């Protein structure tokens, strides 16, 4: 057992901490409180972070990226999230797709998309799967209903596919240059056989951005509608094979996509919890009730103790999963740590609010922000279905183990 970080990992952590303290945290609340929450986007934050390598962090070295390992990625996500959870996510969202491009895309696709991504500090990416009537169904399609799941239709026309339909809540939606879009190439079979993953640049004819969603938390992070009206996407933009669903399209990508996404949410939650612990301790040391500092009241002590213990336990779990990813060991832990981080971030941010509740009729706005950001965990990742999905994975591997035992 060795929990020490290597020099490169310590470097990324220190860089991220500095950037987070100097650039993200000071602007976090002001950004959070913009009515509507979207206009204008702070591109300078993305650009500054990009120059430090935080936009392209996961692009492999052989393709000209920083090629940071998963442990470094987790450290950076947590540090950035300590400054602002939504800003951290706006960076790390790109890493998910860097992983996918690096492992599943053709050389031609890498030339056409990875290179401009690396070259342009304002190039960000997103994935479009959710639709108004297809949320959880995309993650766990019901066996008996082939029509369940996304319905955005793609019809082949020569060297192109014509896409029609709409996506909602799409990450980096209003600001992205490239989207990975799940569409139905065959509407009569389920999405695992009838679904295909397309790369759609924002300049695609017939493609436009609809409404930007006004959310309770993660207000820097832009979620938008993507609208396809006879959008023409060249066949060469298909990821993997037609009709294999998005999971198999990323075949060979055993580290990106969902597995990275699980770690991403957990590492981001860790940063928010660190922030909450710091706020709670600071408040409890400087505010008095009944003549004693809050931190001298058992009531507060027990809450801070719980916050710290949960946060440290989450740190251990996050770092272990990142370490497992770097060793290419994949287990249900990725899913479990995400599910658990959802619980931990709720509890820790709300305990922080309970401690600050001693002020009566006012609330520290950042304390409220952390609770609002935390709420995103139970809403945007299909929380319940993710938990059920992990169990399916475990059930399957147990069945496999049982078969071996026979």
């Amino acid at each position, binding site marked *: 057992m060795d929990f020490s970080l290597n020099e490169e990992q310590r470097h990324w952590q220190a860089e991220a901490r500095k950037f987070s303290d100097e650039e993200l945290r000071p602007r976090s609340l002001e950004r959070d409180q913009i009515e509507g929450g979207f206009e204008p986007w702070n591109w300078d934050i993305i650009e500054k972070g990009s120059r430090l390598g935080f936009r392209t962090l996961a692009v492999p070295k052989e393709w000209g990226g920083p090629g940071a390992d998963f442990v470094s990625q987790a450290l950076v996500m947590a540090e950035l999230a300590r400054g602002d959870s939504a800003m951290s996510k706006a960076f790390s969202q790109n890493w998910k797709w860097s992983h996918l491009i690096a492992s599943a895309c053709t050389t031609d696709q890498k030339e056409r998309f990875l290179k401009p991504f690396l070259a342009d500090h304002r190039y960000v990416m997103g994935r479009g799967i959710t639709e108004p*009537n297809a949320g959880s169904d995309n993650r766990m399609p019901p066996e008996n209903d082939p029509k369940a799941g996304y319905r955005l239709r793609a019809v082949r026309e020569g060297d192109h596919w014509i896409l029609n339909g709409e996506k909602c809540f799409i990450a980096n939606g209003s600001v992205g240059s490239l989207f990975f879009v799940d569409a139905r190439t065959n509407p009569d079979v389920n999405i695992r056989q009838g679904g295909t993953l397309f790369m759609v640049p924002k300049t695609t004819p017939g493609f436009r951005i609809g409404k930007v969603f006004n959310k309770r938390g993660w207000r820097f992070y832009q979620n938008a509608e993507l609208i396809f009206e006879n959008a023409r996407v060249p066949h060469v933009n298909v990821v993997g094979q037609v009709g294999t669903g998005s999971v198999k399209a990323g075949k060979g990508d055993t580290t990106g996509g969902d597995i990275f996404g699980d770690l991403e949410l957990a590492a981001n939650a860790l940063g928010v919890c660190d922030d909450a612990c710091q706020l709670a301790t600071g408040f409890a040391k400087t505010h008095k009730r*009944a003549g004693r500092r809050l931190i001298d009241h058992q009531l507060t002590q027990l809450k801070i103790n719980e916050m710290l213990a949960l946060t440290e336990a989450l740190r251990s779990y996050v770092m272990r999963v990142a370490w497992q990813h770097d060793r290419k060991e994949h287990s249900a832990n990725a899913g479990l740590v995400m599910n658990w981080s959802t619980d931990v971030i709720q509890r820790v941010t709300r305990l922080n609010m309970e401690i600050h509740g001693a002020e*009566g*009729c*006012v609330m520290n706005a950042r304390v409220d922000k952390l609770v609002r950001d935390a709420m995103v965990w139970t809403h945007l990742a299909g929380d319940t279905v993710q938990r059920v999905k992990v169990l399916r994975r475990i059930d399957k591997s147990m069945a496999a183990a049982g078969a071996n035992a026979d």
Partner: protein
Amino acid sequence: MYNLHLTPEQLEFRETVRDFVESEVKPAALNPKRLEPFEKPLLANLVDKAAQMGLRTLALSEEAGGAGADGLTSCIVMEELGAGDVDVAAVLAQTAVLARVLFDRLMTPAQRGRWLPAFVKDDRCHLACVGVDSGTGTGWSYHRPAVEGGAVLVAVKQGNDWVINGALPFVANANVAKLFAVQARTGAGAPVTLLVSRDAPGLTVREPLRAVGEVIRWHHGAGAGVALKDCRVPADNLLGEGAKGAAALDAGMAWGVPQVAAINLGLGRAAFEAAVDYSKIRRQGGRNIIEHQAIGTKLADCAIRLELARNLIWKSAWALDHPEAVADRSVSGLPLHVMARVYTAEVVNEIALLSAECFGAMGVMRDMPLQKYVHDSMVFRHAEDSDSAAKLQVAESVAGYQRPMAA
């Protein structure tokens, strides 16, 4: 003897207010154009309409011109209003509760003659109580003499007048009140309770707190800070006699606590009902989501907690109106109203969160009601006396602790 039947009048009251909420309050309060912005000004026209329906004077005696509702009936009404808009409900409840104690209990017939007609006639005449600093909940002094707390204003008798000085950072209803009941110390003498009208020279109502900034508004209703500088009122404005007045006012405010819980409960019920309606029509995983165990268990948790909270709220309201039932040990002598408020705040916060979860991503969208229910429930849970400190008040009761009088 155990009878949970509501009277025909109570049932009728509930139906009337429920109709008002469905047809007038919800359409205004849950309009996306109102939901999205951070600032949500009080829906004053609905407060006025509710006042015209008699809800401003709900608890004022019939002889005085009110509806004479008892505690339980008031809770039934406030739950309905809370299901529509917690701010509207909070304003009306505060005025109704204060009207009952001020006009029916504290005033002499002469004072009533002077103040009551104007109050009853004017639908916009609201009441506020400038009392103790809300940040000094006795819970924090658990099993110790209180080292802070009590009235923070000071009144000095000058000739035939009282001159009041001091300020409070937050007074419920201050922003809409036309008449204030002010509790003040008198130096060596007993504390006094004085009536001060909104236009008295020296009384200033501060700007209401904002929903944005480093520190944000964390209360319901129409509260604001109040300052009194050399504010002079005639001796005729003295309510009750010294400490007796303060005690009566405190008891009157305690009588209103179950109603605060009832407003909170109404908010939880609104969130829950929205979740049930949506779960019946939202289809994922091959069936309407209400047919999934994961959703079913959330909704059951909500339903159980709502029932339990309502039981405790109603019981506490009834017990405050029936001290003889405590005396003959039919009902617990613990502070049921504090227990009801704390329990309701905790569970309604959970109910709002669980209900919002049923909506998936829509549960965090600002143009949808669910995120507002969550916010409102968080405010109930952490406003005024924080929950955990309030629990210590209950614990002191359990222990039988008698706090020595402050020096």
